[in-house]
């Protein structure tokens, strides 16, 4: 009798501290989370990720003190194609070396599949997984992982170093705390994936990740609201770092389709942004109303000159010297100072795609 009692009591004792150690925030949804975890479902399932309506003002800061400059150099100035990734199951930052070997073997096996005699193919792949320490903003963020693939062609001269043919990273910067904390312990959330290099390698790397960590990759588009946020964010940095230009591109569904490219002098853009900020009283946060007011101001200026309603079309691209972003999920970050704010914004876009 006693043994049976203790047997039933044990799991309760084990789970109780575990559950109470997590704080699920204050929304009503968190009640649902608590209930489902008791019913044995994944606690992350019901957690809602909210669309934010205001953000803190991003401050350009030198991250080279926290992050290895070599790692930053690998991330900036390249164009990345973004995807979202569902949480990785049993991913460990300590096992990166073994992942390197596994992925290299997988790539070689996939390349050799169905090929009887290899002619002019890459002989072997060298894969390097690196943890980019210091990019994470909060304790709940998992550290960014950088993946590089070097390959050597069959005709390369003796002693020639293998060339870097593909690189990619998985990142999480200032992710939604409530969502990250509701993650079961075996999962690592690195929702943002950027790839640069041959499309075929990207597909192979994705399929390796999907098989190994039971996750799913999907395309991440940056919608016009987020592009507007980026435009405002970069314009706001103008006094600290010269943005040189603010270039916006719209596509208007007219017959024939009309592409509008709109370049604004940085000082003018900043003055407009500053006047909007002044009007709403200089607070520490930026509201979505201020951002849309900024874009509407730019739009109405173009309308006055060319009689084109830009709001009838869609914003497809935003670029400054600090970086550029395209609607279909391509991004280029040129300045390391603004890297964390941009990555935080993109992490948020990716988290909105997570299954909830």
């Amino acid at each position, binding site marked *: 009798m006693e043994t049976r009692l203790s047997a039933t009591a044990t799991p309760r004792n084990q789970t109780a501290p575990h559950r109470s150690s997590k704080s699920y925030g204050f*929304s*009503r*949804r968190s009640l649902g989370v608590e209930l489902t975890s008791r019913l044995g479902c994944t606690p992350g399932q019901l957690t*809602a990720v*909210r*669309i934010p*309506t205001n953000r803190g003002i991003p401050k350009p800061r030198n991250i080279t003190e926290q992050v290895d400059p070599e790692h930053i150099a690998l991330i900036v100035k390249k164009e990345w194609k973004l995807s979202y990734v569902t949480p990785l199951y049993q991913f460990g930052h300590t096992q990166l070396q073994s992942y390197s070997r596994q992925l290299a073997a997988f790539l070689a096996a996939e390349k050799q599949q169905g090929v009887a005699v290899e002619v002019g193919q890459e002989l072997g792949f060298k894969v390097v997984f690196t943890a980019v320490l210091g990019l994470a903003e909060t304790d709940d963020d998992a550290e960014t992982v950088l993946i590089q693939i070097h390959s050597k062609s069959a005709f390369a001269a003796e002693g020639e170093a293998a060339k870097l043919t593909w690189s990619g990273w998985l990142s999480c910067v200032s992710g939604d705390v409530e969502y990250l904390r509701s993650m079961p312990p075996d999962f690592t959330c690195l929702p943002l994936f950027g790839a640069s290099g041959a499309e075929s390698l990207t597909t192979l790397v994705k399929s390796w990740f999907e098989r190994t960590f039971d996750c799913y990759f999907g*395309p991440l*588009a*940056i*919608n*016009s*609201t*987020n592009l507007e946020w980026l435009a405002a964010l970069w314009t706001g940095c103008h006094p600290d770092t010269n943005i040189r230009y603010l270039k916006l591109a719209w596509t208007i*569904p007219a017959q024939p389709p009309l592409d509008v490219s709109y370049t604004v002098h940085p000082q003018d853009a900043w003055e407009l942004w500053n006047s909007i900020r002044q009007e709403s009283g200089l607070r520490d946060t930026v509201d*979505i109303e201020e951002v849309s007011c900024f874009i509407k101001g730019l739009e109405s200026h173009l309308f006055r000159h060319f009689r084109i*309603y830009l*709001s*009838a*079309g*869609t914003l497809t691209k935003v670029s400054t010297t600090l970086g550029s972003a395209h*609607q*279909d999920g391509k991004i280029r970050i040129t300045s390391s100072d603004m890297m964390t704010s941009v990555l935080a914004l993109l992490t948020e876009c990716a988290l*909105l795609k997570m299954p909830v």
Partner: protein
Amino acid sequence: MSLLKPLNKLPELNTANVLLVENEELFQKKLADAIVLLENNVNVIVRLARSLPLPLESRPRIDLVVFIVHLNSEQSLLSAEASLKHLDSSYFLGKVCFLVTGARCGTLPYERLTSLKKLAATLNSPLLMTEDRTTEGVNTVAQRVLAVLRVAAGLVPMATGLYLSSLTRCTVPTDPDWQNQD
């Protein structure tokens, strides 16, 4: 400019009038054709407009006003909002309906659909999601609009627009995340 009123003109026997309002004029023609082809028993008159108000001289009787909103442009939503001001309040007793296209597209901002849903909910009107690219989608939405139109025009015994709209109107869930939006 005076408001458009639903009961200013006398109804004609066995006739239903629908007004399709769309700023872009991309979809209304296709939908109009589909609606006319579908209905055989009732004389359906489809009228098209880019925006309201209608010219004062030749205002016909309108039994149902359909606003077509394309989610890929902000202008579409703004124009519908501006047009709504020219409708008499008695239209909102079941004689207005909203059609949305492109809600499945992943690159569109969520805020636009949210604000449209709120608009439809505050006006007690139904919101129909539409697929405008395929003929199948156009036919489906034509059927749905016709069903609402027959009731709104008084062609269905024992049913009125007000009665139907209390069942079909868009509702915004009372969820903390929705309240967070404003």
